């Protein structure tokens, strides 16, 4: 509960600052928010290490937090800090003068919603969290008032989001019909061993609702348009924080609510979704020339890899998934940091403009290369280890089907290697004159990139991080839900 309260305090502080401070001091708002977030994250780590690690419940069992939950929230906070740092220059731009307070308030509200999704142990609270994390995002997507694409993206997002919420609610009502309760643990016990047609349909709807936010294929179609249309800071927030939080919430639901019908009902659904997600995401990523659209499809297929941690259905899978999310935050934010810096300086966003970038902006090209290598999973960068751990965890599940699944995932990494290296090739090998002139990015942008690049390089080499996550999940109560 401490983290939610802390987040609310920050929200209120930002709100008060935005409303009551004199106009000329508002320029400091982005920095103030970022600093508040840093302090908050540091305190969050304090809870993680200092406080007791046993699960704490509130609201009559509707809400629960534990060491693992605190850890994933901390991981998300780190990502949010990087996003905030990277967005400082954009938020202080001319277009944003009147609205920068709203941007931060909306962002904090969605983060609060994600916290609720992760910690909810009752579906009503979960839905509140889900909506809280979805609807303000539409406003954020539309933040570039002057750009037509931004509006289009927001409209597409809100329409599909509402539709998916409806389907999700319908699924929940089916679940209620089957189990007679919306408490996670009661549903878990009630469903034990059942597999009626209604239950299966309920699960398909629930999964599609969450899969929408995770942009699993075939519920992903909004992703590319929204990522392309939204301001880059919002896109990076969407692709990393929103995705990471939802993935963990998805894990909690599948384990703690539907864990008792794992093999009967949803195991095969997830196989199909993972294969589709990774493959289709890759196939579309190959054709993209717009960098943001390209990263949209790349993040779709990355979501497929994250799902491997759930299908592994063991504690190592949970640890590997958290680690994957952490590494993915750093890698993707490094890429978005470069894209944002170039977009802010020159307004260029096409891969064709990146040709020969190495000659004009070697440092940016280098950061981008590391990000691509990490996303593709090339050793010794962190992305390699996260993929390695998640594959190991998945194979640990032991069935023949999972071997096939991992094999397909491995083949897909080869395809992904192709398109990630396409960017590197454009930057380094192309002989063309670069259309992007040499420029110096703002301090905040460079700081964000340095943090992300440091994460890419050192996370893979720092084995204690993964070991810590592994210890955490081994101690957690999640273990009890993993049954066959």
């Amino acid at each position: 509960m401490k983290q939610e309260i802390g987040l609310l305090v920050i929200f209120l502080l930002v709100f008060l600052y935005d409303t009551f401070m004199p106009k000329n001091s508002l320029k400091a708002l982005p920095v103030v928010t970022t600093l508040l977030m840093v302090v908050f994250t540091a305190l969050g780590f304090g809870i993680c290490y200092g406080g007791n690690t046993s699960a704490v419940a509130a609201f009559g069992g509707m809400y629960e937090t534990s060491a693992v939950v605190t850890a994933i929230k901390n991981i998300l906070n780190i990502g949010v800090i990087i996003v905030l740092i990277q967005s400082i220059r954009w938020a202080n731009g001319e277009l944003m003068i009147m609205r920068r307070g709203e941007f931060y308030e909306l962002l904090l509200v969605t983060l609060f919603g994600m916290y609720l999704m992760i910690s909810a142990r009752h579906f009503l609270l979960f839905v509140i969290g889900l909506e809280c994390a979805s609807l303000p995002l539409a406003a954020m997507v539309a933040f570039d008032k002057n750009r037509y694409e931004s509006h289009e993206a927001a409209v597409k997002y809100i329409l599909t989001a509402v539709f998916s919420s409806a389907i999700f609610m319908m699924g929940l009502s089916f679940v209620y019909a089957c189990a007679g309760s919306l408490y996670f643990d009661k549903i878990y016990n009630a469903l034990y061993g059942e597999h009626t047609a209604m239950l299966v349909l309920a699960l398909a709807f629930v999964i599609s609702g969450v899969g929408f936010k995770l942009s699993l294929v075939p519920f992903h179609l909004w992703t590319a348009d929204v990522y392309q249309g939204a301001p880059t800071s919002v896109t990076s927030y969407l692709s990393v924080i929103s995705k990471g939080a939802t993935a963990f919430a998805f894990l909690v639901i599948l384990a703690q609510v539907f864990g008792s019908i794992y093999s009967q009902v949803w195991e095969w659904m997830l196989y199909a979704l993972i294969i589709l997600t990774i493959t289709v995401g890759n196939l579309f990523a190959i054709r993209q020339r717009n960098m943001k659209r390209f990263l949209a499809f790349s993040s779709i297929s990355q979501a497929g890899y994250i799902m491997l941690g759930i299908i592994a259905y063991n504690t190592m899978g949970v640890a590997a998934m958290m680690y994957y999310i952490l590494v993915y935050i750093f890698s993707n934010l490094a890429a978005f940091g470069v894209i944002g810096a170039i977009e802010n300086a020159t307004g260029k966003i096409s891969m064709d403009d990146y040709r020969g970038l190495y000659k004009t902006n070697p440092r940016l090209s280098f950061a981008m290369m590391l990000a691509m290598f990490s996303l593709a999973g090339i050793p010794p960068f962190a992305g390699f280890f996260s993929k390695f751990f998640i594959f190991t965890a998945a194979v640990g599940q032991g069935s023949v089907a999972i071997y096939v699944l991992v094999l397909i995932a491995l083949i897909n990494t080869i395809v992904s290697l192709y398109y990630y290296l396409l960017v590197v090739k454009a930057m380094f090998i192309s002989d063309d004159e670069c259309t992007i002139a040499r420029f110096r990015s703002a301090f905040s942008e460079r700081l964000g990139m340095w943090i992300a690049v440091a994460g890419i390089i050192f996370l893979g080499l720092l084995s204690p991080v993964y070991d810590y996550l592994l210890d955490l999940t081994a101690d957690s109560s999640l273990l009890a839900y993993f049954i066959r």
Partner: protein
Amino acid sequence: MSVTIPILILAIPLFMFIFLGLCGKKMSHLLAGTLGTLGMGTVLVLAYYTAFNYFFSGQACFINEAGERLQHVIFNTTWLQFTDSLVIKLGFLLDPISAMMLVVITTISFMVHLYSLGYMRDHHGVFEKGFQRFYAFLSLFSFSMLGLVVATNIFQMYIFWELVGASSYLLIGFYYTKPSAVSASKKAFIVTRFADLGFLIGILTLSYYTGTFNFTDLTSVPVEGLADTFRVDLSTPETVLAGISSGAAPIFMGASVLTWALVLIFVGGMGKSAMLPLHIWLPDAMEGPTPVSALIHAATMVVAGVYLVARLFPLYLMENSALVIVTVVGAITAFYAAVVACTQVDIKRVLAFSTISQIAFMMVSLGVARPEYHEGLGYMASMFHLFTHAMFKALLFLGAGALIHAIGSNDYTEMHGLRKYMPITHWTFLIGCLAIAGIIPFSGFFSKDEILSAAGNYSVWVYIWMSLVAFMTAFYMFRLYYLIFWWKEHTVREGHHAPHDQPWTMSVPLIILAAITCVAGFIPFGNLVSWNGEPYDFMAHFDWSIATVSLIVAVAAILLATVMYRKENKLPAKMKNAMPALWRWAFHRFYWDELYMFITHKIIFGCVCRPLAWFDRHIIDGTMDSFAIVTNKASNAIKPLQSGQVQMYVWLYLIGALLLGGITILCLI
């Protein structure tokens, strides 16, 4: 003995390599060279101190009360631990031969460091390009070679064995803009690597059946005891069964596993020591700078094979057949190389073949050593010859370097009659020639005589054969000497100034080495080095009759060379025309290179590589290409899904959710 000095002996060259390699470009040429030389000088002092301590301090860990010298492990740290028993250690072993090698390596290396300060620049004193790199590589080589000789276990030896191979590769290819140097360095690396494959298999076999890598364990076990663990007694079924169940090694293709292991290890030694048929890299290696030839390809690295056999000598003693192989390979190589050396025109090639021949002498000497003949005289003689040969061959190479430096060519036809112009080089070169020919009182006389008497004890045929080689050795060395320094008056080429002696940095090493060559024969070597550590009375086994015969042989050869080559005459041409086929074959080194070319290009490339290349091109690449094509097609086919219309998105969403549920229902219920 404290561990500080041994560690420093290894650490200083390594540090010099890293330091000069990283910072060399930033400092002046002279400073880099001086630093490298000073570093090596320090190592020289430390190594002399260590060797002196080992031989003469009389400490209990070095020599026991009966006067036997002991193997002493100064330190031995675990480097890699795979399992409880499979441990690879790195350490420092001090025993007679490693102490002797420390002296040899540091002496020659220091001389070469000093000499190169003068050699590696042109006539105007401008340093060559890459001078700092040269010193960095020299330091790397010295480090590797020192690590090799002090290895406490065979795996450490293998590691450093490869390191010397790598540094030899780097130094042969030092003039990397010259295509011949590049191909020579590749050739050296590939041929020795190929031989090292045998070495590695030998190591693995040996350690698999003995359970240890350590030299002290391998060689200090009582000889009879270890023999039992390897051989299966085939006399009755019961003994075979007992032998196998007690862990004894099986017989493989008619030879015991110990024989196989020793022969395979010897193959590694053959590669490094350029024994027939793996000798082809050494003559080409002369493409490297001449000081490198002196250090690596005459004095130190090429004797690593001899050192390896000597190191494992107690094991070789258990298998007569392995020692016979060593003898036969050595004897054939010695003869072959001597014949070829008589016909070469490139002075460095002559010296290279002479080196091959002399190393083969050492191999033969090890091969004929038996405790029952003169208490293992051959072993002592081999090590003695290794020592003296290192000194006088380095002297000859450095002398040749001085000549090449002055003339600018390797070809003796450009030299002739240089004695008046380069007196220091002339006299030191003559001392080297006398030593290698075996004239009393120069060092070569004593060591070669020991070898011949060891051979004579073993078999009279080996003795006669090796005496023949000794005859040829004296002949071709004096042929070379006369052709360089006499034959006819030197003609100074148009536009060149007259050749002259070298700067002091080059002369001093020549003079020091010549001095060592003059006196080294009188070192009571038997007291210091013997196969089992017991002091060995040198003079008691000295055979004056053999000494006299070999002296007569050497003098006869020198006389023949004098008659043929002292003044310009027709005799050599007549000789050549009398045996045209033999001469042609010898001149072309008996076409070994062509044979290798035929085998690699025609047979290996044609029959093995080409089908593999086809497989790679068509099957493997084809699979990958079709994979890419399928991906591309699929990507194209699903493009319409991303239409940009929200209605379509929602439809697909709904269909997806329903299909997901529907198919699951159909499958499960």
